[in-house]
């Protein structure tokens, strides 16, 4: 078991002072991601899937419940997880620092760990189907699909055991989406990482995931093998998502 969320609840307080209200972004969410497995997480905005991603990455501490990574509960410091867990995030436009050359962005996770970069950047760019020469370009010279490939290269460079893809293809053109989804599948076969694939698009999730969890209103309403989501999901809401495809 690479990642396990056990009865995780996250509560935000919102509203003006004196009239604060508690908002449950996650309510008793239990999920697990197995070795080499891709867990898909489907839900709409406000369903709590983004918060779930942040909790899985150790960016947000749960209000209650435990999160364990590789069998051990998260430590107090986020840095302990550095390099072993990475993310590919939503917006290709903002996923790379516009003031940094692509190569430096890709190398950053290595530099942060204090490791020297010895040709890994070029190697990794080629792995994700880009020319090594792109390392010297700035992000604005790249297309959305290319930028998302660069994000994937950056996530893979420390050879992490676990990667979170948060809406990683949602902002891309349809014909490019499939290119990236295929790339993720191929890289997973090569590198053997586990993944949490978060998206509002059941079609994309179904295409890459081994198992799928459906979230709504902060709760997981159904978890089942991907197979189920081609034919007959149990929960009404899952059925509705399937119909909308």
């Amino acid at each position: 078991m690479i990642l396990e969320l056990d009865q995780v609840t996250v509560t935000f307080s919102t509203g003006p002072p004196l009239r604060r209200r508690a908002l449950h972004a996650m309510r008793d969410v239990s999920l697990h991601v197995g070795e080499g497995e891709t867990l898909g997480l489907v839900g709409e905005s406000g369903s709590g899937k983004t918060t779930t991603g942040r909790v899985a990455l150790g960016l947000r501490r749960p209000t209650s419940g435990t999160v364990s990574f590789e069998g051990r509960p998260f430590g107090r410091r986020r840095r302990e997880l550095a390099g072993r867990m990475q993310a590919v995030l939503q917006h290709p436009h903002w996923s790379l620092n516009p003031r940094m050359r692509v190569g430096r962005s890709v190398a950053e996770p290595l530099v942060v760990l204090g490791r020297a970069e010895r040709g890994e950047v070029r190697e990794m760019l080629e792995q994700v189907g880009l020319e090594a020469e792109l390392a010297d370009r700035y992000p604005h010279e790249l297309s959305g699909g290319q930028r998302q490939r660069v994000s994937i290269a950056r996530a893979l460079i420390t050879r992490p055991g676990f990667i979170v893809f948060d809406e990683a293809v949602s902002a891309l053109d349809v014909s490019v989406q499939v290119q990236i989804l295929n790339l993720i599948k191929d890289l997973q076969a090569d590198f053997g990482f586990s993944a949490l694939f978060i998206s509002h698009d059941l079609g994309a999730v179904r295409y890459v995931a081994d198992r799928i969890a459906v979230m709504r209103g902060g709760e997981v309403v159904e978890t089942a093998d991907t197979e189920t989501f081609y034919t007959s999901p149990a929960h009404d809401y899952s059925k509705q998502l399937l119909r909308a495809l």
Partner: protein
Amino acid sequence: MSPLLVVDRLAVDYRANGRTVRALDGADLEVAAGETVGIVGESGSGKSTLGAAIGRLLPRTARVDGGVIRVAGESLFELAPADLRRVRRERLGFVFQDPIASLDPTMRVGRQLTLVLGRGTGSGDVAAHLDRVKLDARTARSYPHELSGGMAQRVAIAMAMAGEPELLVADEPTAALDSQVREEVLDVVFSLAATTGTGIIWLSHDLAAVARRCSRVAVMYGGRVVEQGPAAEVLGRPAHPYTAALAGSAPATAARGTRLEPVPGRPPMLTGPSDGCSFAPRCAFVIDRCAHERPPAVRVGDQDVLCHRAGEPATIGQGATT
């Protein structure tokens, strides 16, 4: 009777920093009164430029490099400002992608509607227009930021439809909304348009979604409409290789365990008129002619297709794997 909207060989360039980008490269489109047409294309295909051009709403960096648009017989680019305003007011309505940004944040919804409806509008009229988009009359007292995305888009639709236009241009009106709300908003648009006899041009990147709602579909690529015809035909038996690729590349269409083979490469960025077919570099059926001869419109079944090999058995129905 002539069609409500005619776009004929429209070419539009954007110029910035001494660079020219060709957004439309001879686009043709016809929409009859009351017809619902979906325009499908990826980013850079020119669909938004086409949508904006229909209201002569192009940004200042744009330049029309040829072609005409006729709305109810009037040539849009030759109209005097007063006539243009009249055409926009009486015949056209627009709905955009970001509903909250399209409303004035400093004004209550009711007041904005009143402005659109004109002088002498009572609160009853406002309530009636809100009711048409299935909103409570109390919504009139809200400011745009107090509304959800779906509600704001309904207000925008109520405003666009207030003058009962003959044609509603909707540019990705549901892209910012959740799937459930999306369906509700589309229900509102299409049922309202059906009662007022308004034609719809719906710009989208989602071929399947468009085909479910619209009677006709036009597929854009490289600034041209490469295929248009009845929705079911275009989706089910695409005659242009690009349409076929698009229909077959949505992850949702993949059967369990199959691997989709997307078209390699990415959409072109034209800097001037294309010499041949702009899809040629990515096309599996490319022949010599494609690179240097612009394909003319060919009739295949019920579809108009811009492809040199249109109608050849090898190119038909590819990728329509559903």
